């Protein structure tokens, strides 16, 4: 009698588990590998917001496929990034979205490649990422896009001499070197000032620019904490420059809100103005979901995280429809991507890079971010010369 009950219970359990798997047959599991702690925690959590919004928007719009996100914190460390990817794969992830910092992305994407998983990111601009021959690696942004925007703005300003202050981290050094080369090719006098990421007092550098370089503009290639230090030192020493131009993480609503004294007239790369104006249906869906989930203005990290993930989710859905999920179908579908997104047109080249990536330049004006370059995308008038002091 006991055995009969046991057999019945087992049968019920098997039936239940079969039913469960059938009910979840359309669930596509995506791994999220991001730095949620450590030095990159700020950017990691920003990108994660975009990824979660992408899953929310996708699931709302798609009845057939549902995205299930599973996340692992890589603690801003390359070894942990590899472990994170391996853990996500063991939990059934079909592809990986996330990654921040080229030094973390390189080993993580390598691990994903070995496991046959597609890896998509917007957190690493080092060109070695796309030149290492990985067939499953995709990224939506690159150094060239940031460099084009900065050079374009400085050229339009007719700036003749630039001091480039850059962090010695891999991505920032790469961009600064490319920027120096491009500006020099245009006949602009360039002086480079590399700084250790641990530097907190920028007055000696700014003083060198003020007394020795006497440049017309300062280009900053670093991160939020670096910009605050540089701008603070510049406000104290007041070098005779016409513009303070930065790159990522600068022309953002967060910087405008947190450092209102330091930001006026400062330029930085930007996708959208602030307050954000979303004209497309995709943009409106993103904006609505982001504000609902996070009760704040969307920022560039969220936008990039959203775009990379949405493209991946769409590729996964197409591969699932064709039954090629397990046969390199996801990478194949990613390569077929060719559409307008929140950050512009995205199409992946044979190396997984997005050759169409170009950025815009925004300027902090009265607590807002106004797009001032290129002219055809401008949402306001440039204030030039213009510095925060």
């Amino acid at each position, binding site marked *: 009698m006991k055995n009969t009950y046991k057999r019945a219970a087992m049968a019920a359990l098997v039936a239940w588990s079969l039913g469960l798997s059938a009910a979840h047959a359309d669930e596509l599991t995506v791994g999220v590998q991001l730095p949620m702690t450590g030095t990159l925690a700020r950017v990691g959590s920003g990108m994660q917001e975009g990824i979660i919004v992408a899953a929310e928007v996708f699931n709302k719009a798609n009845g057939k496929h549902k995205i299930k996100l599973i996340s692992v914190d890589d603690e801003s460390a390359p070894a942990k990034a590899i472990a994170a990817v391996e853990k996500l794969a063991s939990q059934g992830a079909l592809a990986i979205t996330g990654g921040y910092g080229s030094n973390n992305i390189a080993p993580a994407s390598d691990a994903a490649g070995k496991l046959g998983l597609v890896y998509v990111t917007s957190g690493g601009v080092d060109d070695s990422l796309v030149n290492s021959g990985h067939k499953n690696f995709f990224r939506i942004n690159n150094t060239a896009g940031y460099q084009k925007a900065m050079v374009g703005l400085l050229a339009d300003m007719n700036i003749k001499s630039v001091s480039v202050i850059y962090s010695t981290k891999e991505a920032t050094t790469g961009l600064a070197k490319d920027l120096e080369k491009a500006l020099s090719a245009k006949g602009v006098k360039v002086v480079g*000032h590399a700084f*250790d990421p641990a*530097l907190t*007092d920028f007055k000696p550098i700014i*003083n*060198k620019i003020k007394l020795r370089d006497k440049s017309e503009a300062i280009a900053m290639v670093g991160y*939020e*904490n670096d910009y605050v230090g540089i701008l603070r030192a510049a406000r104290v020493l007041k070098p005779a420059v016409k513009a303070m131009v930065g790159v990522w993480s600068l022309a953002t609503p967060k910087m405008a809100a947190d450092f209102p004294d330091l930001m006026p007239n400062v330029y930085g790369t930007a996708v959208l103005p602030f307050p954000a104006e979303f004209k497309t249906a995709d943009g409106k869906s993103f904006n609505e979901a982001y504000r609902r989930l996070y009760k704040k203005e969307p920022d560039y990290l969220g936008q990039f995280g959203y775009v990379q993930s949405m493209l991946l989710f769409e590729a996964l859905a197409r591969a699932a429809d064709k039954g090629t999920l397990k046969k390199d179908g996801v990478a194949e579908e990613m390569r077929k991507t060719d559409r307008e997104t929140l950050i512009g047109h995205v199409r992946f080249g044979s190396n997984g890079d997005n050759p169409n990536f170009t950025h815009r330049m925004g300027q902090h004006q009265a607590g807002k971010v106004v797009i001032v370059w290129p002219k055809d995308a401008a949402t306001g008038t440039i204030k030039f010369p213009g510095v925060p002091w």
Partner: protein
Amino acid sequence: MTELILQALYSGLLQGGSYALIALGLALVFGAMKVINLAHGELVLLSAYIAYSVESGLGWNPVFAIPVSLVVVCLASVMVYLVVGRIKKDREINSLILTYGIGVILTNAILLIWKADVRSTGSSWLQEAFVVGPLYSMRGEVLFFVVSLAMIVGLWWWLSRSWYGRAVRAVSSNRNAAMLMGINPGYTELVSFVVAGILAAVAGVALFSYGVISPAYGNVLTVKAFIITVLAGIGSIPGVLIGAVLLGVAEALTVTLASSALQELAGMGLFLVVLFVMPNGLFGANGRRG
């Protein structure tokens, strides 16, 4: 060139004052208990985030956060002591591992409470330029340089003149002999942790007032404080100031005369040279005896 070097020396001096304030608490506990408190940087950071909360929540100048920071950071410091104080064997090594773990817990607690965003003061008064001839600085830097000097003098006076200060030194020199003299070593060590908490609280408010903070920054502060403590020589409070100023000036001169990319290397180079020539640090016990 003269102007550049003068500014570098001035910036280095102010930076040194800031480093000294951060290192004092670690130096005190290291000197008194032979405990390397690797959570010291996180305690400084905790105070800095309290200053941020007071400024952003109440709209007050961060300087007014000092009383709140004192209470919270001293309590946290006492909790660190209560854990570290339980170590009976191989205190130096075991406390190193234990306080490292406490530092990790504090970093993640800060991350959970205040998120990963970078923070700094919005006070215009603290950020305004303070100009003396060709020398430029922020008001906040000068204010807290003076505070740092006052804290160093105060700590030196406390250690050399007050009963508790002398008790701390006695326990540091010979724990058993101090007990025979009627000193309760446990209580004395607790007092030294409370004083270290006071120093960390002031250092944190200072840091928020002229620097930029993020949750991962505590580790950097601890390393810097440890370098200065060893550079100064264990137990030397004036040595902390001199070591910190030397480090600050060496870094600023490197940025001015060579490259800012070499700043950390210059600091470490100075540290290694001093230890090579004077293994007990600039003002270490053997040096003083000599």
